[in-house]
């Protein structure tokens, strides 16, 4: 403890005043406060303050991201070994998975922090803890075979355009990780949604891969032959409900397993870091729209309309999106009641986009970004409604 104290104290001079590293002061401070929670004394009342700070707040999101992160490493490795014809014992799979996922995570944090530090230095702001979350969330939404330069581009877009141009953390309208992901989706549509991208293949095994084909569940349905229901098509391709739930199929690194997201949701709700209203609202919206479409499907030829609502819940990264992205407090509404509506509408939109516009199979991403845009309006409505009930005092 003392040693660490001394170490920071001895280096501080380089970062302060006219020190030659003064541009990097935010970096120095961020590193120091990572190790040492500073003993700042309250300067105005109240003179007691809660032990919770933003670092711990964000740490819980990271903690909740661990199940999808670890499973994502395993799954990316597993799918890759399978397609590349490598043995699928645990060790090989994990090593392969790390080989695929870690570079993306490192790039994401590295590039993300570069921008964060740059803006923090220019604005003389402290470095925001939000990036710790963004930097991990972003790679988990990527397909394993995405080129590293695209990942770098995506996180740059997310941090700079998604956050910094709005004035930094706390003022951004959109979730930065999602902004970056959406940018890649639109900028490189084939890379992001073709069949090949979902599994990372080791060089020589290309032919094998083509034979096994890594179509994701959402893409399968496009292949539906006439007379076949979407459900049988899915099952023919091996996508049973339980497989979709557990998540051992090709897809984005972190979002295939609804189970892992469920674990994360439980953590986040227990500690109160994520709003259960948004998550439950989202699930309700999704299920009810799914049911409604089932009910209406008799008069339509749209194959998607008959998909059982519960399938919507476990497919296409919905669980991941609603648990980790929709609940980002900065881009979600702040008022409690409209959080239900916000979540609900995300659920509704997700299904509608999937069913009526299969060109965007990942409807949840679009749905969340779209609703991000409406958060301020939802807040405005609830505040107006609350203020009307207030006895004025002017």
């Amino acid at each position: 403890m003392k040693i660490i104290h001394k170490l920071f104290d001895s280096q501080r001079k380089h970062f302060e005043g006219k020190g030659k590293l003064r541009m990097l002061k935010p970096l120095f401070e961020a590193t120091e406060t990572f190790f040492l929670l500073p003993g700042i004394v309250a300067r105005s009342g109240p003179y007691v303050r809660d032990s919770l700070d933003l670092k711990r707040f964000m740490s819980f999101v990271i903690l909740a991201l661990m199940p999808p992160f670890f499973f994502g490493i395993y799954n990316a490795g597993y799918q890759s070994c399978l397609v590349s014809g490598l043995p699928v014992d645990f060790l090989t799979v994990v090593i392969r998975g790390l080989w695929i996922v870690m570079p993306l995570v490192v790039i994401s944090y590295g590039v993300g922090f570069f921008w964060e530090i740059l803006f923090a230095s220019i604005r003389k702001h402290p470095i925001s803890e939000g990036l710790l979350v963004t930097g991990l969330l972003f790679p988990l939404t990527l397909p394993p075979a995405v080129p590293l330069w695209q990942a770098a581009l995506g996180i740059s877009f997310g941090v700079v355009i998604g956050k910094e141009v709005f004035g930094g953390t706390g003022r951004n309208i959109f979730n930065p990780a999602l902004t970056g992901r959406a940018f890649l989706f639109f900028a490189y549509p084939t890379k992001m949604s073709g069949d090949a991208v979902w599994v990372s293949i080791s060089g020589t095994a290309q032919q094998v891969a083509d034979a096994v084909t890594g179509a994701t569940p959402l893409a399968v349905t496009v292949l539906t032959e006439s007379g076949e229901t979407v459900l049988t098509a899915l099952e023919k391709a091996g996508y049973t409900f339980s497989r979709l739930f557990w998540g051992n199929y090709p897809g984005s690194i972190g979002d295939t397993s609804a189970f892992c997201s469920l674990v994360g949701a439980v953590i986040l709700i227990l500690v109160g870091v994520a709003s259960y209203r948004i998550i439950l609202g989202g699930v309700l919206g999704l299920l009810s729209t799914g049911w409604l479409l089932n009910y209406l499907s008799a008069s339509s030829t749209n194959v998607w309309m008959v998909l059982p609502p519960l399938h919507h819940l476990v497919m296409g990264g919905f669980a991941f999106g609603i648990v980790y992205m929709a609940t980002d407090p900065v881009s979600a509404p702040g008022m409690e009641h409209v959080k239900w509506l916000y979540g609900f509408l995300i659920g509704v939109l997700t299904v509608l986009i999937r069913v009526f516009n299969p060109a965007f199979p990942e409807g949840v991403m679009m749905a969340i970004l779209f609703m991000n845009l409406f958060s301020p309006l939802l807040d405005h409505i609830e505040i107006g409604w609350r203020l009307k009930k207030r006895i004025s005092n002017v």
Partner: protein
Amino acid sequence: MISVTVTKGYDLPISGRPSPEVKTLKKPLRVASLPERIPFIKPRLQVEVHDHVKIGSVLYEDKQNTDLKFLSPGSGTVTAINFGERRVLREIVIELDREEQVVDFPKIADSDIRSLERESLIRMLMQGGVWTLIRELPFRNIADPKSSPSSIWVVMDSGEPFQASPEVYLRGREALFSFGLKIIKRLGIPVNVSAPDHLRLLGISEMITHRVRGPYPAHDPGVVLYQTKKSASENVCWYLTGQDLLAIASLVKNGKYPVERIVAAGGSRVKTGCHFQTRTGAPIRDMIPELADDTTCVAGGLLTGYVVDADSFLGLHETSLFCMDKGDQAQLFGFLRPGLAKHSYSRTFLSVFRKQPFDMDSGMHGEERACVNCGSCTRVCPVDILPQFTIKCLAADAIEEVLAHGLLDCVECGLCSYVCPSKIELREILRKAKHDYYMEQK
């Protein structure tokens, strides 16, 4: 009797509760008056250094209302008049005589109270220096005799952690309390008496009009008013604490400026938390001789009070002292610890399973960050202000909107600042906005 239930708010689990035992302190060497701590007044000095004053001599008056007199809490020689930043009058220190002399004020017998006129009563209380104990909502300034409040609230306990308890200061003074009520009823305004519903206060129980239940700050007059008001015409009210009512009664009954005070001292850095029988303006060190540099001492309530040092004195309105660790030590991997000993409104520490109270310290426990819209401040605010949105309106200078959000209902309880994970000084920002608005109104 009306029952009032407040649902929002939060009871901090604080260790070091003062016991109901009362220790009588010996006569201090010095006492002082602290004009700096009295909100919104503009003091004009009436004494100089080396002047001799009596208990009840005028020390200063308010420039805005020269009838408002602030009297000396002791008899002796003025030894120092200290100024703070920008020549704000900070304190007037009086070294006490061995035999103190007392200024005589008119007294009124119980039987003559009925014929007391409002105007003459106000003049009498002002001359006698106790009008300063009556304060006005929403700004908490000293009551303006020209305003028209809808009622007067006598508040037995503000609910602020570790204030002097009514069970202690009322003991044996029930008759005086009832006399005090009779007096302020002559102001011609409805009088309410509110008390926490867990305190029995048998001696005065039939005088209590409102029984309040709920977490801190449910017992604050501003919160009780917010919960009970039916229209905007009730916004202006006067209030005083039970102990202040006793002081008023004492002046009228005995014709002497009352300087007795019961003060509670608590917190983890106080050897034995208890109540002290002392006097207005007593030195802090007399009550807490062990006060050291690594200790923060807050006067007037842990959440709404201000920090005092050992050489300072007790202000006119303050009836509590709270001492705790300074909290200036850095902590290795502070944010990753399980936190069994870390108090929090959230559920992010193992301390959610802890039943015992916590030793507090005055550390921030984190650095200031931008608001992340977590909503804790809005959830905890007892008067339904939306601090997270209100400060954004303030930053945009949309004062109309800020008022619509209920700025003036803010009771300055400090809970929003306490819970904020981004360590934003919400209470201070709102308090300052309210203060500025008051100055503009004048």
